[in-house]
Structure formats: C-alpha cells, structure tokens
C-alpha cells in the first residue's frame, strides 16, 4: 500500500509540470486596452477594431485576446455601431 501511494504522488507532480504551468503563464498577460497609454475605443477607430475581429468578421472572445471584461463589453458595442454604418462587415468572406 505504501509503495502505491508514493507512486501516485510522483505521477501527479510530473503531470502538473507539463500541463498546468502553461495556463499560469497565460493568465499573467494583462489587458491591452486598459492602462495609462491604452488607445481609446471608438467606432471611428477602424484600425483598432479590426484587430479584434476574425476573418469571418466575428468578434473574437476575450479569452483569446486577453481584453478585460469591461473593455470587451465596450468593444463589442463599438464594433456593432461600425457595422450599422457599413464601416465594417457583418459577414466576412
């Protein structure tokens, strides 16, 4: 019995090193749209908005772009305004 327990512990440690360390590194990235020198989110700033839209013109999820929750909400609103005025497409190619 004792031997078995020791084996299990070793296994779990190895596992954590290979799998879970990656996720820790990802979390440390900060939001690119908040902070002192962050650009202003506006529907007229097309260069910025196009960064946060996929090839098929969908809004990218914040888990990929690391945008904070409040800024993501504002981003999606501004993208939708730009879509109404035909500055950005609803559907990509």
């Amino acid at each position: 019995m004792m031997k078995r327990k020791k084996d299990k512990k070793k296994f779990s440690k190895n596992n954590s090193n290979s799998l879970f360390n990656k996720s820790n590194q990802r979390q440390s990235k900060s939001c690119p749209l908040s902070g002192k020198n962050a650009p202003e989110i506006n529907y007229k700033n097309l260069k910025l908005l196009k960064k946060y839209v996929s090839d098929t013109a969908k809004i990218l999820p914040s888990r990929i772009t690391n945008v904070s929750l409040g800024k993501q909400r504002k981003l999606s609103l501004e993208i939708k305004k730009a879509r109404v005025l035909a500055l950005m497409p609803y559907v990509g190619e």
Partner: protein
Amino acid sequence: MNYYEHTYITAPELNNQELETIKNKINEILKKNESKIVREEDWGVRTLAYQIKKSSKGKYNNIYIQGTNKVIKEIENFERYEEKVLKFLSIKIKKIPEENSELIKTT
C-alpha cells in the same frame, strides 16, 4: 440640452445641388427646434462593407448637434423617407471631441 453625434450616408452620384437641399432641410429642422450644429466633418466617398439599396459606395456626412431629443427624432423621420439618404446613425455623447477623427477625408 444634450450633445448628439449624427452621421448619414447619401448616394455617391448626387451633385452639389441635391446635397445642399438635404443639408438645408436638416438646418431648417434644427432652427425650428432651437438647436444648432457645433461641428461638421466630411468623410468623403467610401466603399461600403456591404451593399445598401443596391449601391456599393456612399458619401459620409458627420455632424455634431447640440439640442433636444425632439430634433433627433424629426431628423431621423425626415431621412427615413428621403430616398437619397442610404443610412443614418445618431448617438448621444457627453462631450464633443476637439480633434478630427481618423476617417476624415485627406486631400
């Protein structure tokens, strides 16, 4: 009194006279309701991201208005039944920006 930002897209093949009649009508509505245009921006003719009323290009006009919500309702009502206006959008804002936007026409 509130600040509003209003943009409307007209058909690209309009001549100056037809454009001015639309502008004059908007000015009339503004005068009637004691409000005024604070700033104006011309974004020029741009290609639309999707076709509107079968045209793929449009002329963008952007105005900043100081007035009441009645004015916006009346302007939108006028533009809805005007065939030469393809689309419009009005937004309530807190401040009127002093710098030009990036979309402004560069000639």
